[in-house]
Each structure stands twice: as structure tokens, then as C-alpha cells.
């Protein structure tokens, strides 16, 4: 299992994502300006401030050369995980429905939140149980999810824990095909009990299980 972690100018969680993925399998960094996914079985777009997030979060990164490859990879069924800024980029690139707006509080948020697994039948959540609670941190200014249309929700903030005013407490959504997933919380920051929780690992473990199962079939 080989994860590819994208690095844009302004990415800041790329190394955490890389280290988290390395606990599960092999992981390589993918440079934003390359048309090359280096044979990755799954792609992670990490958190940060791609290209400075000028204009709108994720709006410029969408046009990066590597995004063309990622769009093609996603169209052919490849797994793409977008975390925080990665989620914003995937929405701007129309690989996921909806958009992320400034937090209702207008403040930067940094806290541990409880998430509820709404759909445990996807490539990103298959190692979770339906309704399972995951303790994972959020840290963002632009995390209020909005979609005018119904969406496939994988994770919600637990009741009373919505930190940013997201519509219907949505924390993470996937595309119709189920192979592109974006979430505002940071599973890559919750991979070791030393830092409070290892619940984030289940996302990466699910991706690995899906890829290895697909290969076996």
C-alpha cells in the first residue's frame, strides 16, 4: 500500500500526513508542480495554506499541475483523501460537492472534537463501526461546510460539538462514487495516544483495507 501526500507551497501538515500514512504503509511526497503520482495507490491532500490561500481557501491550488493527475486518478476510481485545506481544494476543484465558508465565530479554532461515523461502509470508514465516536482535533478558520444539495455524509460532529456552524453538523463528505473524501478534522494528528488519541488511524487503515481488498479481487 503506497500513499502519495501532496505538497503545495504553503502546505503545513504534509509531514504529519506522511508520518501517519507510514504507520500503515509506504508513503511518498508528491510535488504540486509535477504531473506524477509516483504510482501511489491513494492520494492525500493535506492541511495548510496552499499557495497562501489567496482569494479563497483552495481556489488557487485547484489549478496546480498535480491536480490534473489527481482529477484523472479520481475519475478512474482512485482513493483521494482531502484533510482541512485538502477538503477545501477538493471542493474548489469540484471533486467534492459544496464549499467551506469562514467559521460562524469568525475565529480560528483549535480543539479536540468528537465525531460520529455516519456511514461505515465506505473505503474511508470500513474499519469503523456505524455510530462509532472518533476523537480527532480540528484547527481551521474556514471550516463551515455548506451545500445547497443533499450530500453523502461520512462524519458528523457529535451533538453539541459543531465547532464552526457547519450545515447539519457535517464534518466530512464523499463524492457520489465514494472514492473521494474530504473532512475538516485532522486524522493525521490523532495517530498516537501520546498526543491524546489514535482514532485517526482508522481512516488510513480503512483506505489500506480497501486498496488491498481491491487488489485481492
Amino acid at each position: 500500500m503506497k500513499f502519495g501526500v501532496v505538497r503545495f507551497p504553503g502546505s503545513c501538515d504534509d509531514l504529519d500526513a506522511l508520518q501517519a500514512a507510514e504507520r500503515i504503509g509506504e508513503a511518498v511526497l508528491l510535488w504540486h508542480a509535477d504531473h506524477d503520482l509516483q504510482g501511489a495507490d491513494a492520494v492525500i491532500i493535506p492541511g495548510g495554506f496552499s499557495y497562501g490561500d489567496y482569494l479563497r481557501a483552495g481556489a488557487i491550488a485547484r489549478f496546480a499541475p498535480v491536480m490534473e493527475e489527481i482529477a484523472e486518478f479520481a475519475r478512474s476510481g482512485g482513493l483521494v483523501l482531502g484533510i482541512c485545506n485538502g477538503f477545501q481544494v477538493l471542493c474548489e476543484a469540484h471533486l467534492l460537492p459544496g464549499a467551506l465558508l469562514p467559521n460562524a465565530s469568525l475565529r480560528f479554532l483549535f480543539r479536540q472534537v468528537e465525531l460520529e461515523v455516519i456511514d461505515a461502509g465506505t473505503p474511508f470508514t470500513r474499519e469503523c463501526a456505524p455510530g462509532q465516536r472518533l476523537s480527532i482535533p480540528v484547527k481551521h478558520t474556514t471550516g463551515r461546510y455548506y451545500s445547497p444539495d443533499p450530500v453523502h455524509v461520512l462524519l458528523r460532529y457529535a451533538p453539541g460539538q459543531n465547532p464552526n456552524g457547519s450545515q447539519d453538523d457535517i464534518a466530512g463528505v464523499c463524492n457520489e462514487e465514494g472514492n473521494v473524501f474530504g473532512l475538516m478534522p485532522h486524522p493525521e494528528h490523532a495517530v498516537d495516544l501520546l498526543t491524546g488519541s489514535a482514532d485517526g488511524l482508522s481512516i488510513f487503515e480503512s483506505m489500506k483495507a480497501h486498496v488491498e481488498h481491491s487488489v485481492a479481487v
Partner: protein
Amino acid sequence: MRARVLVRPKQGILDPQGQAVERALPALGFAGVSNVHVGRLIELEVDDPARLPEMCEQLLANPLIEDYEIVADNGEEPSG
């Protein structure tokens, strides 16, 4: 041509920035202000103004959450 693109949060979507400004004004003694919205102004010089709507749709605004308005520098709607 010089043009201005005004980008606003779409109606019906919570606009906390507008709300914060609306709350701040009375505190300074400016009563009777309502319906405040905060958006973005983009000024640009463009050879082919007919392409401005395309630019707005693809980059300058996110049509899902924002409305945009294109104004020619003379204050009139550009043709095309």
C-alpha cells in the same frame, strides 16, 4: 478596459462578517443600519471584457456561495 468585480456572499447564506459589522455600528452611535453584507472588490484591467463572466465563474468567485457583479470603470455594465 478597467473593470470592477464585486463579490458578495449569496443571499440566505450566513454572513458572520456582515453581522459583526452590523452589530458594531450601533455601538459607535450609528443607528438604523441593517442588512449589512461584507464582500470583496476585485479591480482589473482586461483586454477582452467579454471573458469577465468566465473569469468570475472559474476563479474570481465561487458561484456556489457567492454572487458577482461586473461593473465597467465608467459605471456601466460592460457589453458581452
